[in-house]
């Protein structure tokens, strides 16, 4: 029964009235009525605190038939909108802010054209967890493994916020099997490659390739950052691991967990497990053994190491490291699933359901079929009529996602408003 349910879920993930062939027809409509160009510009311009910041930003387009073009740049939101309408990209990536406008890079010496700033980004991909999830693998996801992404968001967001002091963090669904994080503080955008790579290493706990079975080795005492992460995961770990994944539910699964233990504990546990009926009992037994007063020191952290190996966020250091690394833009449509890459509300991370994310076909359908939102100013015509049409998205499922983005923008705006005020004060001083 569970298998059938999972299969159904996977199926709905894959189609939901969407198929890739529709992209060609639907994308123009999406870019016309849904993609928030104005807000996009507001975000990436960062209040104009730095000159020509938006204009010097690199974008890349992936066009139909996988044609990839880099070094796109735009003078304004309008120009971007025009170019996007012309090109109808299947995917857009955001790159770095360069020393010069990327589309004019040929006018400068190659050595003078440099990537200067970019948001600090993280990419968490479900495929990196294939060795610890049994329900799906590769590009598939389901309700039983999605909690891994919830853990990832909570753990990494806490560290970015509390340990590093970053205030403006935007989490976005990648459209299929993962999440991205954009850290937009000014200090984050100015970070060097060395700093980015150090942050990514600080956040990495899972170390080792296929040659390592045990990928987590905790020092004693455990670093406060990891302790905080464990605290965050503790509440939901049992529901995830014991119920959803049932990770001690059969012999094969048990062996995987036993492999992470020191030899003497493993022998004990193997024989204990054989007389226990389910994951819950096995896990309880393991915990009581490792936390017993007489337990040897090297047993003490075993159950935590197991938790971390199964649930701690796995991020791709290479994505975070490079100042000029391009990452998919929020509000793109994923070409395989049709899902919109929507921002995730940090206050409701547990409630985020990737299977409920609107698809491009769903949105276009809603536009035509849902009743108009009653708007007192709806009487205006012609030029205002354009504006009114743009607000149509509000009646669709995209409205919620836009609201999340708006609240992120509000906080961001407050930061550069303060900056601009201070700078104008400084100028007035003389």
């Amino acid at each position, binding site marked *: 029964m569970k298998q059938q349910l999972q299969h159904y879920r996977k199926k709905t993930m894959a189609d939901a009235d969407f198929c890739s062939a529709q992209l060609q027809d639907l994308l123009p409509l999406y870019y016309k009525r849904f993609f928030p160009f104005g807000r996009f510009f507001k975000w990436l311009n960062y209040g104009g605190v730095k000159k020509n910041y938006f204009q010097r930003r690199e974008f890349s387009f992936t066009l139909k038939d*996988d044609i990839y073009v880099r070094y796109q740049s735009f003078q304004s939101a309008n120009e971007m909108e025009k170019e996007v309408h012309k090109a109808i990209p299947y995917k857009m990536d955001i790159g770095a802010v360069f020393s010069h406008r990327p589309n004019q890079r040929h006018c400068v010496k190659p050595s003078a054209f440099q990537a200067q700033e970019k948001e600090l980004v993280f990419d968490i991909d479900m*495929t*990196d*967890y*294939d*060795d610890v999830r049994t329900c799906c693998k590769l590009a598939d996801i389901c309700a039983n493994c999605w909690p891994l992404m919830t853990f990832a968001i909570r753990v990494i967001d806490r560290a970015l916020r*509390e*340990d*590093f*002091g*970053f205030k403006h963090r935007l989490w976005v669904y990648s459209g299929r099997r993962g999440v991205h994080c954009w850290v937009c503080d000014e*200090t984050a955008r100015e*970070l*060097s490659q*060395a*700093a980015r*790579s*150090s*942050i990514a*290493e*600080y956040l990495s706990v*899972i*170390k*080792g*390739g*296929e*040659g*390592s*079975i*045990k*990928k987590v080795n905790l020092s004693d*005492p*455990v*670093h*406060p*950052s*990891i*302790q905080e992460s464990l605290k965050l995961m503790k509440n939901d770990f049992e529901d995830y691991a014991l119920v959803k994944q049932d990770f001690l539910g059969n012999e094969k699964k048990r062996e995987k967990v036993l492999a992470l233990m020191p030899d003497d504990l493993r022998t004990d546990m193997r024989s204990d497990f054989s007389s226990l009926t389910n994951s819950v009992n096995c896990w309880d037994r393991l915990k009581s053994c490792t936390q017993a007063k007489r337990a040897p020191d090297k047993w003490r952290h075993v159950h935590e190491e197991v938790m971390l190996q199964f649930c701690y966020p*796995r991020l791709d*250091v*290479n994505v975070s490291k490079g100042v000029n690394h391009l990452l998919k833009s929020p509000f793109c449509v994923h070409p395989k699933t049709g899902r919109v890459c929507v921002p995730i509300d940090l206050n409701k991370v547990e409630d985020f359901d990737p299977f409920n994310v609107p698809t491009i076909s769903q949105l276009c359908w809603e536009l035509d079929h849902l009743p108009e939102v009653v708007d007192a100013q709806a009487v205006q015509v012609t030029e205002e009529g354009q504006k009114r049409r743009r607000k149509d998205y509000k009646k669709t499922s995209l409205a919620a996602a836009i609201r999340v983005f708006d609240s992120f923008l509000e906080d961001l705006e407050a930061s550069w408003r303060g900056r601009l005020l201070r700078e104008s004060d400084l100028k007035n001083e003389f």
Partner: protein
Amino acid sequence: MFSVLMEPDKSVSSSIRSTPYPVLRSENLRRWFLQQEADLFRYRFSQQLSGSVRKFLDLNDLHYTSILPNEKVELKTQLINSTFGMKELFDTQDFYKVPFTDALDLVRGRKIFLRHGLAYIPHNDLVSIVLNDFRTSLSRALAVTARGLPVIQEDERLQPLLKHLSYAYIGQDYSVQKNVGNISLDQLDSLATRSFPLCMRSLHYALRDQHHLRHGGRLQYGLFLKGLGLSLEQALTFWRTEFARGSIDPEKFEKGYAYNIRHAYGKEGKRTDYTPYSCMKIIQTNTPGPGDHHGCPFRHTDADLLRQRLQSHRLSSSEINQVMEYVKGMHYQLACQKYFEFTHKVEDGAFGLSHPNQYFEESQKLLSGGQHAKRENSGEVQKPVVAPVTMPQSSHPAQSSESQSTQLSASQVEEQELLEECFANGVVLRFVKGTVELG
């Protein structure tokens, strides 16, 4: 400018005045020099007492404040749990709050407590922080000085010496392909079993098994194959065919993977001709993560798993133990060399293993009845020849053909070691009237 503690009269600028001109002019060598000076600085600084450290900080405008007692009490548990050896020293140790960007090495290793973007550094660890600043200052000063120098003819005698200093791995780098087309694709399976080092054998069989490899693996194995003499066309066919057995059809391959292979052969983008990785590079960088099969098996594989592997390759228990002894001692290249000896049934492998392609060549030589290279210093155990610092390889096409030198002669090795000793002790070469003086 910095005032260096032990020699208050020696400032950064005097460091530069006595730097050899050729070092200043070359970016690679400047970086190497920087590393030497940084190591020296770290050593000297760590010898200082806290009183002079504080004076030093003041003198150099490093405004790192120590935390107030009440904050220290509030954070006691976190500070003890995050900082090595703090349990005993906590009460007497001062902590400084430093922007995390000034303490990247400590942040990277999670060796300190971090809050709101500030790293809490115990007094004893201040050296890393100060070192970063010193390095930046010196680097900037070197660059500025170098720009101001006129172009002078360089002394020929210095050239080969300095060129050797700039390479971490001495010896062939297999960058220029010999024997292109000598190997056919259908030989790869048998070659993998007979002559590939363990790292490349793992990658080859993981690829055959899963019809896919992740990026790190593709790079490490792909470049090795290039070093073997696989042409670009062969490489493309090889990867494309294997991937097609999995889920990547040729069209997808062309769009997603072919570009990177051409890039590795120097046919795209910057046209850098990438060189196959040496053992040092494989062991120290590009650590494998979940799903990865690359790296060095002796370094990156769990001991139990490694033993099983060696067993399946028909090594006896005593042979396995010998290999594992080296692994325990972290002598991964020696472990691999022992593995070579056991699998090829030779005693005392007379070559110093430092490169996977070298392993292959030695193996082929043996199997085809030839003798492998004898060591230059007979009777002495020669350590693998390496310079103290890893440095980026030059991408200049002209230089890559020059660097295809054979193993250094004994006299060159001696010269090399002498130079390293000089630099390590802070002695500096002075370039006076076309001769080289040690001072």
